[in-house]
Every structure is written in C-alpha cells, then in structure tokens.
C-alpha cells in the first residue's frame, strides 16, 4: 500500500468527503508532507473504487463545479486497520532492535 493510498483511506475513515476535501484532509493529516495533485488523486480514487476499498456515494454541482463524494467501505476499513497494524509491528520490531544498540559482529571489529 503506497503512502498516498494509506492517507486517502485514513482521510475517508472520518466520513464522507469529496475529491478536493480528500486532498485537503490528506495534506492536513500528513502535516503538509503529502500533497496530492489531480492526476495522482484521480488515479488513487479510481483504483481504490475498482478494488472496492472506497465507493462513490453521490455527485453534486457546487458553484458550477462537479463534486464526487466518497466513503470508505467495510473492506477498505479492514485494509486500513491491517496496514496500520503491520506498520505498528514493523516499528516495534525495528524500535526494539535499535534500543539494543548496534554492536559490532564478532570478527568484524
């Protein structure tokens, strides 16, 4: 799962959002680290819809602009939880290794 996909799923975990709302939420969640441009955002939304991780709920026109709203599906929520659990496990494993300190291997010192 790419960073962008992870942030889009996380943004939608709070509830229904439209395309631009997702981009704003992702930027806020990541502290400005992840900025989604239109091509990337559209690609991510299309793929996640195809995979059944998110679904489009409605399309409305606001000030002459079309907005599509999306929500996280049950499958998407599970995928997000699993990815977060995997990242926790990785961080714990690496954290405990680093806490032990890096010692030279016998014969290499």
């Amino acid at each position: 799962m790419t960073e962008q996909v992870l942030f889009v799923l996380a943004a939608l975990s709070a509830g229904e959002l439209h395309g631009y709302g997702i981009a704003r939420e992702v930027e806020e969640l990541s502290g400005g680290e992840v900025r989604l441009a239109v091509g990337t955002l559209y690609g991510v939304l299309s793929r996640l819809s195809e995979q059944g991780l998110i679904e489009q709920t409605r399309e409305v026109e606001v000030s002459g602009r079309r907005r599509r709203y999306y929500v996280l599906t049950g499958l998407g929520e599970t995928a997000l939880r699993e990815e977060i659990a995997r990242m926790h496990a990785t961080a714990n494993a690496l954290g405990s290794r680093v806490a032990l300190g890096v010692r030279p291997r016998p014969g290499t010192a």
Partner: protein
Amino acid sequence: MSRRLLNLCVWAYPRDCRRSDGAFVRDLALELAEHHGVVGQAVSLLYGGFRERLRHRGRRWRLAATVSVAVTVVAGSAAMLAGPFGGEVEVYSCATRDLGDAGGCAEVERLAAARERQGWDCATRRRVIDGRRFVDLECWTDS
C-alpha cells in the same frame, strides 16, 4: 485561461475516462489549482493521463492474451475430440529425465507401434528441452 489549459490537459486521458470522468477531473483540477497553482495540476493531468493510457493498454493486452489462450484450448480440445477424419484419436506423451533415460518413452512408442499394426495412423513429435526428452505421439483412425 486556467480552465482552458486544464481542459486541454484532460485530453491526455483515454477516451473512456474522459467520457465518464472528464468533467469531474477538470473541476477537481480547478479546485486544486486555486491552492497549488495551475502549472502543477496541468503537469499532473498530463502525467496521470499517460499512466492511465498505459493501464488501459495493459488491460486490453491481457484481455487479448486470455481470449487467444481460451480459443486455442477450445480449438485444440475440439480437434482432439473430433479427430482428423471424424474417427478416434489417441494421444500419448512422455518426458524423460535425461537423454539417456528412454524407458518411459519406449513404452509409449511400443503402444503407438501396436496401434499402427492395427491400421491406425500415427504421427510422432520429438523434442529436447533443457536436456529432457519429450515424445508426443498422436494416433488416429477414421473408422
């Protein structure tokens, strides 16, 4: 001006995408452009469109390959069942571990020879792939 530029960039996407999502993508690009600039969104549209075209082409190739394999399997099965003259067909195949190990194939060749003695026609195809010997024998009768 920015609307026209982004409209042009949407043409980078395949026709199917433009038809179903063109207006949505353009409007999304316009909203994002208000905060992150038009040029960045235009470049992103061009790059995204190119990637989407590659993805669609890959999908078409995969579909074509699947259909070709399915047609070959169906045609092959039909030919095997029908036989070349509408009679019976028997196919024997064997593979040996190495070129010196002909035991299994000798058995297959003996079976085919027996069929030939009974008046069947047989065709043999021998192949050697990576040191392994493969013998395919097809015998048929039109009776």
